[in-house]
């Protein structure tokens, strides 16, 4: 009885460790195949269109509204301390450092990650991937790698669009509606936002999140059970796992980048 229980725990732990190892191997394989995918830009461009262009609208609209809210909330808080002029700095720093990369990645996982997972999962369920293997075409190289590369390229650009639109949103609410002095708004922002420390680190963050979102979406799709239920479950798992991983890594990256100053 006791031995049985121990055996089950052991098997479960072993299974988990094995999955981590398999996932890591899969990630390295994607990285390894990524340059080869760049050699066939047609496939990557198609995926960029599918992943990037189609996400642009949701990213832009969300960025605008996040900027609006930041402008309003920031103004009410700052005004209590008589420093409403710092609104531009507050809006820009929070967008560039955190909200742009993180919210961008969360939206990206929901908008593009799910469709990647579902697409790959359905290809697997329809045995298209097996058919490719039959024809001696590596499905990871032909199907997954271009999508991986496209997602890693698209997310930093989308995050930058998010931040830029958000800054404009903050400007619209702060300067146009509330009436914060425009000169102070921009000059405080420019004095406080560093190109490398803030914008550069934000871009690095979004590149890392691009790797995470793309890897998780493709991995769960590729490993989905080839049934309608399996694909739907993989899609859900993918969004949840990618979002949690993004938030977790965001904390680690923030601690590394902005911790000691």
């Amino acid at each position: 009885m006791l031995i049985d229980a121990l055996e089950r725990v052991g098997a479960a732990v072993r299974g988990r460790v094995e999955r981590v190892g398999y996932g890591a191997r899969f990630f390295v394989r994607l990285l390894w195949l990524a340059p080869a995918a760049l050699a066939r830009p047609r496939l990557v461009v198609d995926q960029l269109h599918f992943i990037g262009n189609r996400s642009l609208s949701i990213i832009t609209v969300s960025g605008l509204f996040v900027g609006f809210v930041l402008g309003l909330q920031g103004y009410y808080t700052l005004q209590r301390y008589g420093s409403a002029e710092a609104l531009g700095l507050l809006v820009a720093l929070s967008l560039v450092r955190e909200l742009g990369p993180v919210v961008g990645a969360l939206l990206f996982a929901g908008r593009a990650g799910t469709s990647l997972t579902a697409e790959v999962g359905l290809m697997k369920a329809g045995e298209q991937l097996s058919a490719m293997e039959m024809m001696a075409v590596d499905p990871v190289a032909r199907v997954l790698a271009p999508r991986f590369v496209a997602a890693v390229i698209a997310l930093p650009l989308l995050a930058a669009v998010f931040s830029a639109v958000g800054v404009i949103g903050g400007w619209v609410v702060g300067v146009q509606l509330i009436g914060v002095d425009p000169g102070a708004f921009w000059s405080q922002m420019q004095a406080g936002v560093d190109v490398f420390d803030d914008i550069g680190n934000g871009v690095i963050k979004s590149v890392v999140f691009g790797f995470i979102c793309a890897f998780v979406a493709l991995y769960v799709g590729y490993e989905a059970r080839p049934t309608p239920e399996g694909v739907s479950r993989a899609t859900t798992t993918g969004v949840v796992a990618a979002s949690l991983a993004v938030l977790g890594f965001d904390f680690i990256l923030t601690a590394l980048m902005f911790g000691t100053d």
Partner: protein
Amino acid sequence: MAQRRGIDVLVGLFVLVGLAALVFLALKAGNLSGFSIGPTYEVRARFDNVGGLKVRAPVKSAGVVVGRVAAIGFDDRTYQATVTFALEERFRFPTDTSAKILTSGLLGEQYVGLEAGAEEKVLGRGDLIRLTQSAVVLENLIGQFLFDKAAEGGSKP
């Protein structure tokens, strides 16, 4: 083929929009436009206390940015801070220029103020600014104030 080209154009637009956003952030929100792109020369100064001065803080003369703080170090022979400034090549300062660490506003960031002297000779690469005034440390100021008050109170009968 026509459809292909359409997709290429759309993707190109997407990439351009993303890059434009980055450039907008760097120029409009960041301080890239404030960078002195011109050549610089370095001069040094020793301070008893640099307070909260940071690398890349502005160096101003008459309120105009003329350079940036390039490095802050510690000299364990004099027990002073050595601050290196990168000044723009086109601005020359006399050798008896004095450097002060100032604060913009009551709680703002700290910067270095240069006040030109009257010497004929100008500072060159690697020269040392001899006249310096340290950052004001609020605790010392308050301590001084309390001490003065106590002394005043003590002298009264």
